[in-house]
């Protein structure tokens, strides 16, 4: 049943704008999409103060659980509550089926790619991907050449960012193959939402995501070095000042494994140990949430104190599994991104199920000229950055910012890419006592051990500021619970 909004809904909607951007809840004509009808009816039925009461009780729940993240560059109040929106984002079974297939295909191909470039480099020799692009990438780790990675799994924990375009089609905006974060928000959002809308949740038939920590643990266990049937698995965190520290403690607690810092680890004879009150205890699998650069001062940045000296040699010797592997960042480089469809075709001989966003490589003269002439319409991103840092959003920029970026691009074209400003989809959010549409993306979490597995859901990130296109938590974004519906 697809129906026009009732009087109660009208008052909730107010002057809810609908334009060319895809609205998750309403068709361009203003009708409620079928799978959103039950949600709309519930909202319309709830007395106004009841909705606010539930909002408050959810707020308190987040507060007391201490679900926070850290904002860099500010002295005070560095712990913030992660903002969230009360209304779930719904994804139909058919939509999810396509996402799941698409991501499985993409991750499988990217893993092949990593294995290839760190061994025979066939894809480079056959000139499907230009050599210069890979070897000039700051994330390419020469020490990984020829190293045998357990089960040939380079990327075990992935979070890819998807957007939905005007056509309603999902596209991949980027693959996070290094240390993707946010999965704890996916899990805690769900916990709070179940308490906030119990009947609605039950009636919708939402697919469960709660076993993610268990799946993650099983994935890590499956990658343990041979001959270690009861592996000691740890989570390596940079420490309490890292923006995702809450998530690290959350996952360690959920999996029942030790949360270690670099200073807890020592290596001896190429074996990694952790210091316990009962002496040294061997470590078999490290789920690291520390960037490559900081993981081992003997191999990577020598000034790092977050890692463990000798870790890489122990890894090379096969005495410890570190996941994700080092050097996986080369495959989520924003310039290499443009080649992912070709990578999928090359290794799997299949067409990509989930398309890419059109991307201009600034190392190509023709494309660079086009970009520099159209800076006010495009989004420019630094290839090595993530979290929304180092970005120019053309339509929202000043002339001075554009000049600055033009200069930077000319100086180092390999360091930037450009993409059209995307009109990605919007979902209704509870802002004050009204529904207002806000831009959303979707980050599903993919695990790759014995096989690729994806819990049906993910983190829907919301640009909570009106009109904003930036969903990163470090830049004022929030999140929503994501309900993948049963077929």
């Amino acid at each position: 049943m697809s129906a026009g909004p009732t009087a109660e809904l009208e008052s909730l909607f107010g002057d809810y704008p609908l334009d060319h951007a895809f609205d998750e809840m309403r068709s361009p004509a203003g009708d409620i999409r079928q799978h959103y009808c039950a949600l709309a009816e519930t909202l319309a039925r709830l007395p106004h103060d009841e909705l606010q009461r539930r909002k408050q009780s959810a707020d308190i729940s987040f507060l007391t659980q201490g679900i926070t993240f850290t904002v860099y560059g500010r002295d005070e109040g560095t712990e913030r509550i992660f903002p969230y929106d009360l209304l779930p984002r719904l994804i139909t079974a058919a939509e999810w089926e396509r996402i799941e297939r698409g991501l499985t295909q993409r991750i499988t191909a990217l893993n092949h790619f990593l294995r290839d470039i760190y061994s025979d480099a066939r894809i480079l020799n056959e000139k499907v991907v230009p050599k210069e692009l890979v070897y000039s990438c700051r994330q390419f780790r020469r020490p990984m050449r020829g190293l045998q990675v357990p089960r040939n799994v380079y990327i075990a924990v992935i979070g890819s960012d998807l957007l939905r375009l005007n056509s309603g089609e999902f596209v991949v905006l980027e693959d996070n193959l290094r240390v993707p974060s946010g999965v704890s928000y996916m899990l805690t959002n769900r916990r709070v939402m179940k308490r906030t809308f119990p009947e609605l949740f039950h009636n919708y038939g939402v697919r469960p995501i709660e076993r993610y920590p268990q799946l993650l643990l099983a994935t890590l266990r499956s990658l343990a070095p041979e001959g270690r049937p009861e592996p000691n698995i740890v989570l390596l965190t940079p420490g309490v000042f890292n923006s995702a520290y809450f998530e690290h403690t959350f996952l360690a607690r959920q999996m029942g494994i030790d949360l270690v810092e670099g200073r807890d680890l020592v290596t001896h004879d190429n074996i990694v140990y952790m210091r316990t009150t009962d002496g040294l205890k061997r470590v078999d699998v490290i789920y690291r949430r520390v960037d490559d650069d900081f993981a081992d001062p003997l191999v990577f940045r020598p000034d790092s104190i977050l890692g463990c000296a000798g870790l890489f040699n122990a890894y090379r010797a096969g005495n410890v599994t570190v996941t994700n592997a080092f050097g996986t960042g080369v495959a989520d480089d924003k310039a290499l991104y443009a080649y992912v469809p070709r990578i999928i075709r090359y290794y799997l001989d299949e067409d990509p199920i989930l398309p890419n966003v059109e991307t201009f490589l600034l190392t190509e003269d023709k494309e660079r000229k086009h970009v520099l002439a159209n800076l006010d319409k495009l989004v420019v991103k630094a290839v090595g950055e993530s979290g929304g840092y180092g970005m120019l959003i053309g339509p929202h920029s000043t002339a001075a910012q554009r000049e600055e970026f033009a200069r930077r691009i000319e100086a180092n074209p390999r360091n930037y890419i450009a993409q059209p400003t995307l009109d990605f989809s919007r979902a209704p959010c509870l802002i004050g006592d009204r529904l207002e549409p806000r831009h959303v993306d979707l980050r599903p979490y993919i695990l790759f051990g014995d096989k690729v597995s994806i819990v049906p859901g993910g983190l829907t990130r919301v640009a909570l500021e009106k009109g904003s296109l930036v969903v990163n938590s470090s830049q004022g974004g929030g999140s929503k619970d994501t309900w993948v519906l049963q077929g």
Partner: protein
Amino acid sequence: MQGALAPEVKAPTESAVAVSFEIRVRENATMLSRVADSLYWMSRYLERAENTARQLDVTMSLMLDAGNASAETRWQRFVAALGNPPDLEWSGDLDEMARRIVFDSSNHASVVYCVNGARENARQIREEISTEQWQRLNRLFHHIHSPEAQHQARVSMSDVLASILDGIHLFKGVSDTTMIHGQGWQFIRLGRYLERSYSTATLLEVFEPDLTQLSGLEWAGHEQARLEQTGQEQSGQELAGQEQARQEQSGFRFLEQVGLLRCCTAFEAYCQVYTADIDADRILEFLLLNRDFPHAIRYCVESTLHAIDSIQRTGGRRPPEELRASIGRLHAQLGFTTVGEILSGDAAAFLHSIRKQCMSIHEQIYRHYIQYSIQSALTV
């Protein structure tokens, strides 16, 4: 009665037993050295905050009575009992001094500094402590930093101190009821009792001259002897005046001694053991050698020993012989002596040696559990 109240106990069914075998148990209960260190310091800092807050409260209430000690002397004694931290010279303004020792986070002896330290340690091991513990500690932290606490301090510092002490007691309560009584909990106890042994010994050392030089009736004789030595002629009126002064003196002395007991929350417990007959020897005996009172040094040392033994039982590969010997020695010293023996010897030196031994025990805990060399760990 018992039969009626006891619930019926069901024997475990077959399937329940079968399931329990499949659950993976972490192979042993040892913990990361860094985590043990944080738990230990979280606990020490809170104990220190509690100690400082209570001693300040007692000192401020003693200052209400004139007595023969000036406010400055009392303040100096209070600061000495904290181990003479810097930047606490008497300024003449008690309220300002009190605010400094409670709220000045740049002063390492302040209550707020200790609470910050405890919370920072807890934050780094958030996954190891229970949610209740974290919330209690967080609440205490936010309370002491709140403008309301500042405001309340201007009205009544005593209320602020009471609310801080409440917060700490609540934290200890939930620690005991919500945490697994494994190694982590034992490290919390270790920190608590070592800190308490040390601070009680410091406090007694500061009060020791008052306690041992004059006790009860001796004081009158002493005064008489002093007067005779100076060879003064005394009129009847003067004698009556002295008698009154002496009465008053002993009244103040009583207050001082009760104050010492209250610094260790020991007044009521003392009365239960010795009645309200306050006597210097007995105070010393009670605070040093009592086996059952949780603030007495002997009790604290015994608890420290128990904590080490429990940690050893759950870990077990590396016996802490040297450490155990050190604690055992101190424990035996306190267990096989009398207050008479202590007083007839050098009491000050005895108290001082307790402090030194506590410090050495702390260092050995570090060497054994936290900062051991790789070589020493590999050879076991």
